[in-house]
């Protein structure tokens, strides 16, 4: 069956997953949703200790079993040691048929591949995967399906019980012996624990893992003792230099700066750029440069940001510090400046559900004026692909892309026209991860295209005469005129993963790649 973005979703996949094909951004709007019940074991004994001596003991006490689902968060990014440490123990104990439900997985988790190959891990639910796990899934090594869902979509799936977590492992920079967790004050600070909050709320068992045990009470707690069953102290939970790095050096790449300038011009010449506007951006060189340029114009025109959201970096925090932003709402910190900025009383931690859950009573993304995003590919229907490489291999993550793009009044995607010899603006993306109806403006180094569904934005930019405007088809044609139209990637029939839309319907499927033969 073809869905709303004209992707063929095979009946067998709809049957196996019990899902519907994607029917458009507002299909679920106003519908009633039931949240699943939560199992809690009462801890009434005041002499009981929640401390366990190691992961092994935690697994035993949490009734680990074949076929269970274990969950993790990705606040430690490429410095994460928790996933591997827990999975090694599960592997050692001989459990099979495990589902990993992670907010994201990266190259740090390459050691899981042998566990995929030997059937320890048979299903993966994640925002996406990078590195060797992506290659393994695309090569058909995962027995079950990989489900890629956005940050908001993950919260929805857990809340509705679609994704049932047996044991959540929550790495925390600090914890006391009764499970009050904070993202700061330890050896490997990540600032916030936003993505793990829903795990704490809904998992049958919750194990906190820390390398910095602090005296009770570790307050104010980012995840409360009322959610935590056991606390396990280990030597190291993460590699600090890979968790929150020093702020990225501003890019000097003129191509990125050019795109950043175009992006800033789009923002300042559209109607939502007024005192109190709201804004979110990413961590790429062009995005960071856009924030810098935007800050300059805000200062010139004395326009203050009402609130900024993120995924935060130094540049956004600087706006808060300088009084150019009133409030920051934080779900993740990408550098140490962002972690330190949390001391500011107007820099607030928010849970992933508050940030982006599509089926609650209204998420923060719905209040966004602008979001600046990146994409591996954008097609002439404005569909974006941020998960599957142009070679067909899974290599990225949805993150908050579909959530923020849908929520924001003006969703801008920055994308160089060519990625090496690959045209990033193309006729059809390899895989649809964010639907074109969510994307309003595409900024490339060759010009800016506005989605025809947004004549208001087009009119504003034409009137301002501030950027070289092109149609998306013109951009595609320029790309093809330089590097040619690439042949379609050949896939096997077997479906190895699904791209879930925010609302739980199926946006697209990912097939096993065929080995490339010259």
């Amino acid at each position: 069956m073809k869905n709303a973005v004209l992707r063929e979703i095979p009946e067998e996949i709809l049957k196996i997953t019990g899902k519907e094909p994607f029917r458009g951004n507002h299909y679920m709007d106003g519908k009633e949703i039931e949240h699943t019940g939560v199992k809690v074991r009462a801890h009434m004994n005041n002499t009981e200790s929640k401390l366990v001596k190691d992961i092994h003991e935690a697994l035993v006490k949490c009734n680990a079993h074949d076929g269970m689902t274990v969950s993790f968060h990705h606040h430690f990014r490429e410095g994460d040691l928790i996933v591997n440490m827990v999975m090694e123990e599960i592997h050692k104990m001989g459990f099979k048929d495990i589902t990993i439900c992670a907010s994201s997985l990266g190259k740090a988790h390459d050691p899981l591949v042998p566990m995929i190959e030997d059937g320890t891990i048979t299903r993966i639910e994640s925002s996406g995967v990078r590195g060797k796990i992506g290659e393994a899934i695309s090569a058909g090594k995962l027995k079950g399906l990989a489900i890629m869902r956005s940050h908001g979509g993950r919260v929805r799936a857990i809340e509705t019980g679609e994704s049932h977590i047996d044991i959540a492992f929550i790495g925390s920079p600090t914890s006391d012996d009764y499970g009050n967790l904070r993202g700061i004050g330890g050896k490997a600070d990540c600032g916030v624990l936003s993505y793990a909050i829903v795990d704490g709320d809904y998992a049958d068992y919750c194990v906190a893992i820390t390398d910095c045990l602090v005296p009770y009470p570790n307050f104010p707690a980012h995840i409360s003792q009322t959610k935590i069953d056991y606390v396990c102290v280990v030597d190291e939970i993460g590699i600090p230099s890979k968790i929150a790095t020093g702020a990225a050096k501003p890019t000097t790449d003129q191509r990125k700066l050019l795109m950043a300038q175009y992006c800033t011009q789009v923002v300042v010449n559209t109607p939502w750029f007024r005192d109190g506007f709201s804004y979110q951006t990413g961590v790429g060189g062009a995005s960071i440069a856009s924030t810098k340029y935007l800050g300059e114009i805000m200062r010139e025109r004395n326009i203050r940001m009402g609130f900024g959201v993120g995924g935060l970096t130094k540049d956004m925090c600087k706006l808060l510090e300088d009084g150019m932003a009133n409030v920051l709402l934080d779900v993740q910190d990408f550098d140490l400046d962002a972690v330190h900025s949390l001391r500011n009383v107007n820099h607030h931690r928010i849970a992933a559900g508050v940030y982006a859950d599509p089926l609650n009573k209204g998420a923060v993304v719905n209040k966004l004026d602008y979001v600046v995003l990146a994409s591996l590919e954008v097609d002439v229907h404005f569909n974006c692909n941020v998960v599957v490489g142009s070679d067909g291999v899974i290599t990225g993550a949805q993150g908050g892309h579909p959530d923020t793009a849908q929520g924001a009044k003006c969703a801008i995607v920055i994308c160089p026209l060519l990625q090496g010899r690959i045209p990033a603006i193309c006729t059809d993306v390899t895989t649809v991860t964010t639907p074109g109806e969510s994307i309003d403006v595409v900024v490339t180094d060759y010009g800016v295209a506005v989605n025809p569904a947004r004549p208001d934005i087009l009119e504003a930019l034409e009137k301002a005469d501030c950027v070289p405007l092109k149609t998306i088809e013109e951009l595609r044609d320029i790309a093809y005129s330089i590097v040619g139209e690439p042949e379609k990637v050949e896939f096997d029939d077997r479906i190895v993963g699904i791209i879930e839309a925010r609302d739980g319907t199926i946006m697209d499927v990912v097939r096993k790649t065929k080995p490339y033969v010259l």
Partner: protein
Amino acid sequence: MINPNKYRLRRTMMFLNCQKPSLIKDPYIYKPDSVMLDLEDAVAEREKDAARYSLYHALKELDYRGVEKVVRINGIDTGLWKEDIRCAVAGGCDSIRIPKTEYPRDVKMVEEAVAEAEREFGRPEGSVLLMAALESARGVMNAVDICDCSERLFGIALSGGDYSKDIQANISGTGIEFMGARQHMIIAARAAKVQCFDTVWTDLDDMHGFRKEVEMIHAMGFDGKSIVNPRQIPIVHEVYTPKEKDIIFAEKVIREIDDKKAKGIGVFTVDGKMIDIAFYDGAKRTIALAKASGVYKGDL
């Protein structure tokens, strides 16, 4: 007939290594006035043929969208320059930059080879222009003769690295070592009615110093500057963009001169300044620059 491109706007001429296809595939997005597609110093000796191959196909296949395509050939003291010219002319370049020019005869040799290539590849005679890089004391001293020796020659450029070595000076960052050459070259170029271009600034971490230098060469009368990084382009263009008060004044001067000429008046005042016909060309140049910089939308 003079090639209409001879006096085109050339504020920025960006060097690009032909050995790197990724650099030459789309430099026009940065909006330089000219690109300098380099077959000479930037290209490793064993890659010269590969660079020519990339150059030829880039010139042939890509649309540089109005940006002038200048090709820097290898020196006439090498065995490479004639084939460089054939490839460049066959591909469709606009101009050839002659490195290490010391005497008018150097230009004449290249002119001959270019004319031959134009005939060989069916391009109109005189369609390919020339410019000469002066890289030695001898070249600078012969500047006026070099400027005068060919109708095809649109300008001369100072090549600071080799020049400073030749005069046994170090590059100081202050420009003191180039003072004489700069002044001499600009006078020679103006005497011969050709353009004059300044040398590159290579310290990309010192953009303040770069801006200072651009302001200086602009004040000296240079037409533009050689560029090694696209980051430098907006700075040069900004410095070369006429200020609003200069545009308004130039507009008044042109209109008044046109009006007074018709009435037979030679000298008059504009905004309290004495004006005569000698101001006409300068005012026209200001308006042309303002148009090219996108800051003048008037009818002159």
